[in-house]
């Protein structure tokens, strides 16, 4: 203990012992915090691990779900693509049908134009036919009127024929009577007639239509309303008279110079004049 080495070793021993004591005290003083930190860190690691497991599980679930969704969407996409292809085909077919329909439409339009022209021609033809029918109807009406006129004329002719037959029988009776009379008077009916035979004057009544004198006013001509159809003949003498208060006044005698079917012209015999002849004076063959 007296040498220096021992002393140094003792001091070193003291120093190291004190260091060991301080180290052990420090360890004892802070070991509780270390345990808590360890436990806390272990719990945190466990929690983190659990969370990590949950996240992995969730990730797997999400992956599966996304895979299923992806498969479903792929299926939908395939279906949609098939549908689009089908729609494309339908569209092409529809376009083809549209082209065919347009061709049919054009054809029908052309047919329509032809039909319209034909209908126009038919309308024109119908109008012409109507005009023809109207003309034929008018012609038919005219023909009916003519036929009715002819029927009336036929009836009239039949009446005249009946009257002529009656007159013929009367004339035959008259001829028989005249023959009997000639035979009683011992006259041969076959003897020739010698000398002029005056014509039979029938009773004819008419009216003066116009009276006009010539330029020298020496003669007066009278236009009367009866002619050859009424039995007036050239050379016949007729009497002109006028009625007043139911009494007939003699005016003059005329001699027929010109004869027409329904009119005649007579020359006034001046030596028989008894008054002035005016329009609407009466003329007669037997006054």
């Amino acid at each position: 203990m007296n040498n220096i080495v021992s002393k140094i070793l003792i001091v070193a021993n003291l120093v190291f012992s004190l260091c060991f004591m301080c180290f052990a005290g420090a360890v004892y003083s802070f070991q509780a915090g270390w345990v808590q930190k360890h436990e806390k860190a272990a719990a945190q690691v466990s929690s983190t691990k659990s969370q990590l497991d949950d996240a992995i599980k969730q990730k797997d679930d999400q992956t599966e779900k996304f895979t299923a969704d992806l498969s479903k969407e792929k299926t939908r996409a395939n279906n949609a693509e098939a549908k689009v292809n089908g729609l494309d085909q339908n569209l092409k077919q529809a376009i083809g049908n549209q082209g065919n329909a347009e061709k049919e439409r054009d054809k029908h339009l052309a047919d329509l134009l032809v039909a319209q022209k034909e209908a126009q021609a038919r309308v024109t033809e119908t109008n012409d036919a109507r005009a023809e029918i109207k003309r034929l109807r008018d012609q038919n009406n005219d023909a009916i009127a003519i036929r009715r006129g002819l029927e009336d004329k036929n009836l009239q002719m039949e009446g005249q024929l009946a009257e002529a037959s009656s007159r013929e029988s009367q004339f035959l009776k008259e001829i028989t009577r005249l023959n009997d009379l000639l035979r009683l008077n011992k006259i041969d009916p076959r003897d020739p007639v010698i000398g002029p035979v005056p014509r039979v004057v029938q009773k004819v009544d008419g009216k003066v239509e116009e009276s006009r004198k010539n330029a020298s006013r020496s003669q007066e001509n009278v236009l009367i309303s009866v002619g050859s159809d009424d039995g007036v003949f050239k050379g016949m003498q007729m009497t002109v008279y006028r009625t007043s208060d139911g009494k007939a006044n003699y005016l003059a005698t005329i001699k027929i110079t010109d004869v027409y079917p329904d009119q005649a012209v007579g020359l006034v015999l001046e030596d028989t004049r008894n008054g002035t002849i005016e329009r609407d004076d009466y003329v007669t063959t037997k006054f």
Partner: protein
Amino acid sequence: MSQQSSDPTIYDGLMFVSLGAVIVGIVFLIMALDGYGWSNGG
């Protein structure tokens, strides 16, 4: 035969203090290990 001195010196005291310090350190370590439940932490 050499003469031996029987009086403790400062160095004896230092030795004694060192021994005490080691013992106290060992007690601290035992207490720390007891806190861990005598587990090495592994």
